[in-house]
């Protein structure tokens, strides 16, 4: 535009033009407001310093630890309608008595929960002090600074109760919520963006009746599993072999699919230099995905492309599916008395290993995060440490549905083990067989949802008969530019 040399002048001119354009469109006498002023006024380019916070930071907390430090404060939680939420609600009065803090909470439907959380956090407002989140979401909410770094809180002895025992939480789970925002860098270093609360590993659940008949637990390789699934489909009327998720969503990739994918040693992305290289178009990956699609086509659910965890797990419970390769807790819910037709008949095993005997398992971990713009951080931290503390988690494991404990002490608790082995035999065995290899198998990057949703759409196309090689190569080339800031 004639000012090539000077970027600042260029930017100023550009801003000038945009402002004039905007004002012309609105037609109001808003000429006095510059674009930047408007944005600042509404704080919508929400960032860490956009909100109105006046509370203490981690470093401000000194003195002896005291549960009643924030007596009289009120905090607001955003929660998903979930049994973990129910367990917390059941004990909120215990918490309030302990701390004198009043807890208000909004409970939202699962389908729309993250929409609400995204809007709430991106606005830079401190409406919610703490909330539920998953690990992948921290890759999205973390980099813009919407999540409070919890490391200083954990390490501050004045802020954290002495029995908290941070190390008691499984290392893979602690790492799952910890990232340094460098694309491709391993999890486990950087800011602690959330605290693990209750998690889910992905294994194979099956109906005991067909399990015995067709030898499900003998299936040690994927090919074995596929043939067992085929036998079930052919041999049982009204039942098909194996249910997995297939809807056009990131949630389709992350449970059973990603678990088996990782057991094959395959990667979603590899790092070469500074760039992330998509890994789903290698010949091994293509072969695997072809097999996975074929398994679902021939021995899986009809209408697979609309299957979310609802349909998949309820098919197992209804006796329509012989097996389910998905979150262990989904089938646990189907196995509870009165929950489904096949309640009581469901068993678990880790599923097939990879060609090298790998039992790498992907996980989902519901975690509790803190709003960086909250003005009540100390009170929120009290809630979070209570909810993720030994006492509450043990209570939840023995009396409620928090049955994939994030804490080692809870997983080894006698009462918990008794209860589970009696009501859901083989659940804990399976849990213990995979726990050491259970971690987030994805490569952390900010465009996780972008990439994984497109991956699910591509998988759907393969399922419907498109050539896997060309579909995946297309996907890989799109993702290449997408995730590297294209």
């Amino acid at each position: 535009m004639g000012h090539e040399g000077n970027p600042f002048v260029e930017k100023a001119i550009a801003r000038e033009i945009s402002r004039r354009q905007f004002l012309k469109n609105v037609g109001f006498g808003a000429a006095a407001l510059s674009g930047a002023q408007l944005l600042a006024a509404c704080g919508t380019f929400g960032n860490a310093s956009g909100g109105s916070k006046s509370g203490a930071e981690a470093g401000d907390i000194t003195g002896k630890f005291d549960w009643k430090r924030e007596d009289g404060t009120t905090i607001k939680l955003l929660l998903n309608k979930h049994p973990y939420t129910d367990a917390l609600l059941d004990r909120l009065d215990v918490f309030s008595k302990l701390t004198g803090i009043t807890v208000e909470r909004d409970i939202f439907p699962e389908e729309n929960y993250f929409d609400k959380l995204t809007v709430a956090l991106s606005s830079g407002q401190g409406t919610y002090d703490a909330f539920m989140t998953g690990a992948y979401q921290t890759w999205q909410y973390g980099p813009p600074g919407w999540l409070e770094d919890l490391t200083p809180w954990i390490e501050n002895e004045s802020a954290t109760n002495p029995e908290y025992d941070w190390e008691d939480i499984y290392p893979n789970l602690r790492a799952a919520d910890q990232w340094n925002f460098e694309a491709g860098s391993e999890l486990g270093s950087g800011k602690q963006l959330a605290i693990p609360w209750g998690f889910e590993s992905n294994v194979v659940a099956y109906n005991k009746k067909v399990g015995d008949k067709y030898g499900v637990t003998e299936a040690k390789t994927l090919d074995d599993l596929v043939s067992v699934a085929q036998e079930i489909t052919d041999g049982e009327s009204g039942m098909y072999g194996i249910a997995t998720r297939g809807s056009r969503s990131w949630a389709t990739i992350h449970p059973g699919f990603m678990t088996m994918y990782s057991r094959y040693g395959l990667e979603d992305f590899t790092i070469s230099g500074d760039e992330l290289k998509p890994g789903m178009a290698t010949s091994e990956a293509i072969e695997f995905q072809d097999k996975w699609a074929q398994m679902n086509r021939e021995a899986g659910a009809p209408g697979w492309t609309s299957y979310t965890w609802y349909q998949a797990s309820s098919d197992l419970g209804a006796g329509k599916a012989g097996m389910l390769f998905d979150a262990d807790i989904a089938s646990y819910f189907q196995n509870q008395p009165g929950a489904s037709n096949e309640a009581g008949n469901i068993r678990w095993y880790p599923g097939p290993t990879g060609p090298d005997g790998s039992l790498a398992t992907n996980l989902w971990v519901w975690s509790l995060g803190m709003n960086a713009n909250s003005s009540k951080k100390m009170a929120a931290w009290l809630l979070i440490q209570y909810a993720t503390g030994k006492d509450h988690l043990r209570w939840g494991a023995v009396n409620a549905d928090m049955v994939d404990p994030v804490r080692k002490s809870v997983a080894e608790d006698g009462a918990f083990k008794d209860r589970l082995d009696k009501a859901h035999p083989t659940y804990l065995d399976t849990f213990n067989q995979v726990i050491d290899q259970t971690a987030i198998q994805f490569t952390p990057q900010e465009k996780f949802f972008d990439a994984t949703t497109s991956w699910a759409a591509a998988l759907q196309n393969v399922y419907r008969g498109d050539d896997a090689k060309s579909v995946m190569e297309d996907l890989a080339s799109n993702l290449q530019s997408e995730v590297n800031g294209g």
Partner: protein
Amino acid sequence: MSATTADDRAPKKVSSGRRALRPYLLTLPALLLTIGILYPFGLGVFYTFFDYSASNPQPGFIGLENYTNMFASSDFWSSALVTFEYAIGTTVIETMLGVAVALLLYRGSLVSGVLEKVLILPLMIAPVIATIMWNLMLQPSIGVVNYLLSPFGLGGIEWTDSPGLALFSMIMIDVWVFTPFVAILALAGMRSLPRDPFEAASVDGAGYWYTFRRLMLPMLWPYILVAVIFRFMDSLKMFDIIYALTQGGPGDSTMVLQVRAYQDAILFTSFSQGLAYMVVLWAIVFGITRILVGVLGRAQARAAGAS
């Protein structure tokens, strides 16, 4: 007879200045109540000139780049295509079915008295919940629809597995929910029509279809068109039904513009990109409605002439 203003012939009791002000006074509150939306809307448009996303919270000005990228990608055009397929499919079917149902009820029959009372029922179920229920009914493994169809050998239909069937299913759900909307408006319109022309025609021995085509339809057109405008507008922007049923799948085959916009803006937190889609969608709705309103104006003139 044309609807001329009564003003010219009314006795002048009030100063002409005040009289001229009157329509503005009557209509301005409606405008004022709704004008607040301009600011958020303008802000949304404003954001599309930046590259604002969660991974870029301090965005830079990029001018029309969001738009040029969008128009250059095949994603946009396939989304636009399926959006139109959906909107036209639903609007046409709902209009024809709605007028037909209204006619049946207007004409009256043994069952119409009772059934008319429940005409509104589907409309009362929120579209998102209607879709969830239909999804349950259409699920091949445990759904009741396939169960009822299996004696006819049609029990294996996979309602959302192919692009064609998926589009059909979502149109069917939309038609199920919103046909009563058209029917009610048409029925109320039919019942508001003056009797004289019809009595005259009946006296002249005009047949039922002739009466309908030549007399009723032209007078009914303005009512029908208003319903069409609202349905078409809403269908172009439809989100709930499509997202709840297929999330835009299988593949990308039902990714209407609104779903793609939501995906980009909220799911992927690429706010500017998603907003650009929404702005274009808004422009499309704006343009088409303008055309339809023009058609409405002509239809109203003709209707006035018909009576």
